[in-house]
């Protein structure tokens, strides 16, 4: 099937796991012919029948049967998706967009910086790196979240550590019983060893957080071309036809969501874009 698929394929929800109070992870199996295999960082358009369509990054491991999406309820369509349960059908178009290119870090250090739900699009890249752990030097995962209760994939962090990742979490606001780090995610960047000439950094989260994280990585010597961020705009068609996701010269459904920070810097500083 073409990667420019424009008609949704039907998928059935086979699993639903609550990550936080407003975020769920759905597992899907195809009813029709499945969409093309995805690369870490790509997204698909998910169609909640009767509600509408939204772009959601794939959070499952590439190469596995079925699809996994981690969705936060922030509007009518995502709410419908979050409330859907096993057995229900949804439509899927995709996969679309650019990927993290995690294999570019082979033989080097990989730093993954996630803010909030931004860990979901990064998870496939991290799982791919951990599945071929011997190909990478240090794998560092820095996660910032609002409170301990807002941490997604909390049950997987120890597994990632056992697989050789240095996983660190910080929260903006501690709650009773939290004994971990409290502060912004950029402070974690200041505390890890960084090899500026042999590091690939993947950053995903709110746009301001990505900008600050990229700035902190740059301050540690990582070249802007070796920092990749995932931008989101109002993706609608997914096939670079409608123009809703335009950011300057880019159509993010085609040229993004993953782009280098070097490419993003001039675009993120223009107010009108």
């Amino acid at each position, binding site marked *: 099937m073409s990667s420019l698929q424009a008609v949704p394929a039907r998928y059935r929800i086979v699993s639903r796991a609550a990550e936080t109070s*407003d975020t769920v992870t759905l597992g899907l199996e195809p009813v029709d012919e499945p969409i093309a295999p995805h690369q870490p960082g790509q*997204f698909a358009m998910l169609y909640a029948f009767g509600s*509408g369509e*939204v*772009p*959601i*990054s794939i959070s499952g491991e590439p190469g596995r049967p079925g699809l996994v999406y*981690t969705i*936060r*309820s*922030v*509007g*009518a*369509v*995502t709410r419908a998706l979050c409330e859907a349960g096993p057995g229900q059908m949804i439509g899927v178009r995709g996969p679309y*967009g650019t990927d993290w290119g995690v294999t570019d870090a082979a033989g080097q250090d990989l730093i993954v910086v996630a*803010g*909030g*739900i*931004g860990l*979901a*699009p990064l998870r496939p890249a991290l799982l791919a790196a951990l599945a071929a752990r011997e190909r990478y030097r240090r794998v560092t995962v820095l996660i*910032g*979240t*609002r409170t301990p209760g*807002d941490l997604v994939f909390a049950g997987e962090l120890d597994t990632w550590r056992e697989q050789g990742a240095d996983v660190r979490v*910080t929260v*903006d*606001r*501690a709650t*009773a*019983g*939290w*004994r*971990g*780090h*409290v*502060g*912004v995610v*950029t*402070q974690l960047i*200041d*505390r890890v060893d960084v090899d500026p000439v042999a590091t690939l950094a993947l950053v*995903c*989260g*709110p746009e*301001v*957080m990505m900008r*600050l994280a990229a700035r902190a990585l740059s301050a540690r010597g990582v070249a802007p071309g070796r920092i990749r961020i*995932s931008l*989101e*705009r*109002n*993706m609608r068609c997914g096939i670079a036809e409608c123009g809703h996701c335009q950011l300057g010269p880019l159509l993010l459904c085609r040229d993004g*969501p993953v782009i280098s920070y070097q490419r993003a810097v001039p675009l993120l500083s223009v107010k009108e874009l």
Partner: protein
Amino acid sequence: MNDPVPAAALADHAFLRGMPPDEVAWLARAAVAVSLPAGRRLFDEGAPAEKCWLLTSGQVALDLHMPGQANLIVETLGPGDVLGFSWLSPPHQWQFGAEAVEPTDAFELDGATVKALSDSHPELGYQLVLRFLATAVERLQATRIRLLDLYAAPSRDAGAR
């Protein structure tokens, strides 16, 4: 008995990086190396502030006493960080509490000795003020970022997550 700190070890600390060797040597006179077990309280809110610590390993939580509840952690500090600003300015009382949340090593500086050394060696005082100011600015910026509540939910379905 705590061990004195060689000037070379002090000079390696991130907070003092780039300080002229002569000034580090003076500062070493005010420093001792301390090891703090997990759970050790370094100070409590309202107590006289007389020291500061340059952390070299472990983690310390700055906290606020909440009546009838567990202390609320405001921020955590780790290797390379400086703990303790309140000794610098009136009323010389701790504004928060601090507790080692894991075994922690630090260089402990005696505030009165540092002030006396700075009075007699203004270059040392200048170098320290620059560093405390830079750290205060960094923490102010980090606090502002936290105030933005960056991870709050967007108001509508739009992007790719």
